[in-house]
């Protein structure tokens, strides 16, 4: 398999080759699978990565429905991050407190040349005044774009001013696009401010005995709602979700839950870690994508709380959910078994979806992350070995201290050891590599060129990616499914979500459209590669 890797990389200049070979590996090729990740993208290669602003405003903050997010900067960034991610949310009421939904809004200070020259603080203040007058938000976030950091607008001072002036929560995020090497920096910046200013400021206590926060679930296509529904069926209260259909209203109470569930490790692990230090709350890595992984996640929660009644209820819910989907899953599996897939998404999904694909008998031949760190590939045990570089040092890493009022010890070390023995790992993520097939290609920060070359050689049946990279596959006769937006579909999480996913794949592979690619006056089909529809129409 390593020859595959060489075939692609040898086309680079020696300088680029030297850089990229560290990011591209084949599983099992060396004694230890080690990858380089979270380093700068190479200029001029068409990386699929976004910027710090995208990670902060687009990913982590964007879904918080009751916060009015003002993008401080010229118009582009606000426009491009407006409604482009399918994080769904509705306004609702909980514990007698309403959370409005402002996700349809896009607020920008629309800075002009003169603002760049003379500074934009005044305009920002006025914009806040106008937002307050317009929608009376309880919480305002200010997100800065590239020029703001350069011209020195003090958005944090403005936030402080607004907080006093309007007696609302107002938090500034210095998430200028040039910071860090990818979206990842933006996640971290968002995480820092959430723990600094929001978590722990509420005082509503959960009503049920067992309560959790769902971290790193962005409710794409309704995933989070499906997860929350299952947890509720099991009798577990969801205090807050970070951040899909999430709210300032709920997140401020996050510290009152008993356990953190981490879905997307990359984007939210900082909050999980800091809450561990500050409140003593443990976290467990869950994955609600995939039938088997969903079952494992639920059972882990049961084991953590160690309540037999809860465990029994979880088993009953699992049995019920599985019963409802069994026939459909069996049919889809019969159509999908033996297919191969390549995945290139985000910092978690490329791992999560491998497990769902496995449920349908699909194997993964290539997987890569856009912006993950080494621990997302190799497991958290590698963290002490990661050397911080100049770019990661630029992103503030905050230390929190145990909160005298709320710090609790949830479990003794013995109890933890007993859980470990049962296979429930606390405050740990194993990464993507473990469980992957030998020879599978790993490609960190996959670019346009490599995508094309690898697809030519590996010819997977399905390529999972985002909108920017999907056409390379689609135009060469390969099924493409978008795992950022789900192509208007979803939910894919939970048990029912697995059925949606299976249906979408079968529909995609077996559409009659594929069978017409060869025109009657041509000898060869106009595309190469294996076509899905084996039942020609």
């Amino acid at each position: 398999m390593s020859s595959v890797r060489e075939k692609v990389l040898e086309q680079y200049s020696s300088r680029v080759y030297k850089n990229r070979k560290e990011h591209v590996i084949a599983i099992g090729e060396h004694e230890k699978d080690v990858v380089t990740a979270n380093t700068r993208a190479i200029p001029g290669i068409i990386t699929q990565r976004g910027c710090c602003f995208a990670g902060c405003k687009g990913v982590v903050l964007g879904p918080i429905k009751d916060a009015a997010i003002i993008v401080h900067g010229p118009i582009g960034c606000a426009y491009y991050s407006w409604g482009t991610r399918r994080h769904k949310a509705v306004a609702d009421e909980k514990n007698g407190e309403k959370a409005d939904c402002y996700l349809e809004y896009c607020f920008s200070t629309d800075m002009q040349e003169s603002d760049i020259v003379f500074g934009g603080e005044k305009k920002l203040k006025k914009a806040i005044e106008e937002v307050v007058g317009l929608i009376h938000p309880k919480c305002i976030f200010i997100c800065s774009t590239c020029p703001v950091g350069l011209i020195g607008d003090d958005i944090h001072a403005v936030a402080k001013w607004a907080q006093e002036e309007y007696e609302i929560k107002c938090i500034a995020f210095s998430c200028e696009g040039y910071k860090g090497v990818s979206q990842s920096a933006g996640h971290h910046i968002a995480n820092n401010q959430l723990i600094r200013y929001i978590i722990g400021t509420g005082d509503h206590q959960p009503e049920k005995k067992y309560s959790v926060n769902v971290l790193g679930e962005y409710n794409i296509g309704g995933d989070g709602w499906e997860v929350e529904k299952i947890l509720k069926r099991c009798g577990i209260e969801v205090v807050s979700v970070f951040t899909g259909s999430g709210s300032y209203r709920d997140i401020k109470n996050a510290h009152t839950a008993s356990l953190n569930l981490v879905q997307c490790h990359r984007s939210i692990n900082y909050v999980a870690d800091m809450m561990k230090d500050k409140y003593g709350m443990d976290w467990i890595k869950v994955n609600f994508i995939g039938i088997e992984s969903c079952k494992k996640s639920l059972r882990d929660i049961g084991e953590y709380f160690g309540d037999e009644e809860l465990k029994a209820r979880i088993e009953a819910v699992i049995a019920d959910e599985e019963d409802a989907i069994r026939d459909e899953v069996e049919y889809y599996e019969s159509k999908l078994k033996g297919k191969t897939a390549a995945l290139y998404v985000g910092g978690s999904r490329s791992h999560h979806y491998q497990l769902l694909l496995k449920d349908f008998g699909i194997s993964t031949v290539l997987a890569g992350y856009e912006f993950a760190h080494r621990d997302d590939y190799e497991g958290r045990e590698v963290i002490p070995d990661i050397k911080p570089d100049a770019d990661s040092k630029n992103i503030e890493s905050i230390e929190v201290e145990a909160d005298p009022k709320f710090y609790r010890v949830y479990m003794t070390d013995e109890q933890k050891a007993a859980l470990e023995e049962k296979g429930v790992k606390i405050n740990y993520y194993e990464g993507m590599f473990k469980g992957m097939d030998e020879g599978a290609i790993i490609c960190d920060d996959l670019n346009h060129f490599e995508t094309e070359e690898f697809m030519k050689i590996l010819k997977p049946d399905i390529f999972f990616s985002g909108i920017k990279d999907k056409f390379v596959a689609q135009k060469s006769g390969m099924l493409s499914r978008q795992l950022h937006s789900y192509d208007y579909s979803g939910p894919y999480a939970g048990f029912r979500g697995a059925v949606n996913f299976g249906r979408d794949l079968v529909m995609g592979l077996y559409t009659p459209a594929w069978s017409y690619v060869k025109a009657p006056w041509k000898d060869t089909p106009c595309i190469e590669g294996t076509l899905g529809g084996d039942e020609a129409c």
Partner: protein
Amino acid sequence: MKTKVSSLVNLNTNPCKMCMPMGAVTALYGIKKCMSILHGSQGCSTYIRRHMATHYNEPVDIASSSLTEQGTVYGGEKNLLQGLKNLITLYEPEVIGVATTCLAETIGEDIKRMIEKFYDQNPGYENITIIPINSAGYGGTQFEGYFKALYAIVSQVKMKQEKHNRINVITSGISPADTRYLKRIFQLFELDVILLPDLADNLDGAYKKSYSRLPSGGTSIEDIQQMAGAKYTLFLSNMEPEKSPAGYLYEQYGVPYERIELPVGLRAVDRFYDLLAKISGKPIPEEIKEMRGRYLDGMIDAHKYNGDGRAVIYGEPDFVVSTTRLCVENGVMPVAAATGSVCSQLENLIKEDIDLLAKRYLIERYEIVQDTDFKNIEELAQTCQANLMIGNSDGRRIEEGLNIPLVRRGFPIHDRVGGQRLRMLGYEGSLNFLDEITNAILARKETGFREELYNTYYKEKMEDKMEEVKKDVPKTGAAFTKEEMEEKTKTHPCYNCGAHSHARMHLPVAPRCNIQCNYCVRKFDCPNESRPGVTTKVLTPEEAFEKYKVIKEKVPNLSVVGIAGPGDALANFEETKRTLELIREYDKDVTFCLSTNGLMLPMYAEELVRLGVSHVTVTLNAIDPKIGAKIYKHVNYMGVRFTDESAAAVLLSNQLIGLKLLVERGVICKINIVTLKGINDHHIPAIVEKMKEIGCYITNIMPFIPVEGSVFEHNPVASNKEINKLRIQCGQTMKQMFHCKQCRADAIGTLEDDLSLQFRGCGGKEKTEGTSKALRFAVASKSGMFTDQHFGQVSELYIYEYKEGRPVFLEKRKIDKYCAGSDECGQGEDKISKIIKVIGDCNGVIAMRIGESPKEKLKEKGILVLATYDRIEDAVTMASNKLLS
């Protein structure tokens, strides 16, 4: 008509524009074997690629110099040079466009110099044309960015000046499908053209065996180099950009050019073909003439539907101009034309066209706006009563929210497929576009007209007939005897001081108003406001009837039903009529009264009498149009908007005619006069004289209540003393009302006890029983409906009691009234202490927000503080539950 509606100047809410780099890279996609690289953070490339790929359904490869924090300190030269090299190694382009971003421009990157350096360092690459484009995101929108790139292309590429016979064609942003159309037409006229840019294939390719990573279609660099030697440039654009690529070729190389509008709509396409015939020396081909005939045929087929269209057109300035003209030609009224770009030419380009249609259709209002956002566009769609929108898919939120169909055109279209294949150029493209517009109008009719038709023409007529058959015909005003009228007036609390024990109920069924008084902002009861949290409480006639029934049961002394707004009862005559009919059928003895500005009285007086309205109140503030002109901003009458003195004159003559008609038929008329200090206060006795002469029953001289945001917001207020003096003076002329409470449109109960808040949202459901203990709350509210005011900003507080499980409005307390004198409130005392003094008897305070220090002070006094934004009665209930639990 105004050219800018921009209430929020510092906040762009839902942008109707993108940034310059977007336009620049779009133009570059029309160049053969060209790659572009954005000099800045990699997010710019990623975001723009995402937006373009979703619209065009094609791979979009845009490189980035991936500047990091280090780059912002030391400059991005290293990254750009390396990026260029990598791009060339991997993609082997012949042309590279280097476009700057906000970041690069803010740190002042000199990309021209860097490109020179790149050539110096890499001797093998001189055949590759690298074009620098300065496109700061804050310098303009994608519209400007597009032309900036074209200008950079013609001005930076090394030109060959040998003369030849080819023709340059430069276009503003059009779709790939329209580009293919243009190319076909040039072939038809046997014109050898150099088309810049040529998006035909690169952004709408055919399915091919292998994916070519380098755009293989588009204008070749050889062709671009020939542009300087062309015999002529045809510039297809509705406006001359600040830096015109055609202008440059003329100034620099003497290539003459003609700019004509984009060939959209009959007139423009005619001109286009006419010009092509002239340039080519060839007659217009038969197939084009036939196509013109077919388009005309289509226009005529559709005209009978198009007249119903009231369109909001938005997008890039060029798009707005073309679409507006096409709409006007076809009788679709553009009630609003809006662009997010700053474009002062826009109004001149389309005003004449729209004016023409507006005059023919008697449409009083339309708007042309530039530099706007979707928040304003949404407001325009509502206020101009649009039933159609035309523009990119960013209008989808308004489409969903207001249920106005959206015809998708322009860029981007993200929620439908095929945006790259949409046509609007030529007869064919115009016809496609027109068909879609007409069909959107038809689809709306098809799904809604049966019910509307039935309700408007059939249902009510049938009921009329039934009434005729009925034996017990309800009495009409004219049929009331004098004694009956006297009795009705006696029991009417608004007409008789002694009638306080009789309850009246106002039903808010009339949302619209046809005049604008300078003292009024119908902000909170205006259904045109649809901000989150502000709900309108206007009832449908059926709901109003339900409410009436429920309240009649609970308040047996209810003897009067009135329609008083929130707009004007007669500006909403269908609703008013239906409401009164329903109630009359249920209760034959009820007294109907109605408040109006009188504008529509001559038209409806007869019918009001027939409906059994016995009392009509007309607000009449002047009998001299000169004075009236100061009070009324405009009057919309029979489809025409009047302003100034003509507005006041129209209103006044209608008021006087209407009143005469009513008085002749025995209807009791009351005249409300708002006392506006310095405007009509001296004039009031004259008004009263006139009213006496006409035969009105009573006049009600009222104080003026300043409303925030109204023209008269800061006008002086007449004191109670002054008002009473006027009343006494005028009392010598005719009967005066001394007890007016200036009730709201939905007031219920006797004047002493406004019960309406108890019955809000009333479908007749029983409230849960609460405790008998009465709690008292002070509520900070601007609107009287929501707890929407900051505690520190109140000038008056609404006092509510919560008893027997219900919030009941008690009274309003003015802060300044209580704290007017310095003996009562000490000099140094702050406002908060004054407020606390006023509400010392309350158990709690409810406000939208409240500061820490007043909160503490209130707590010290044992007063509960609740900060919430909610309906008042909900908030009071919530607070009571807190206290009681």
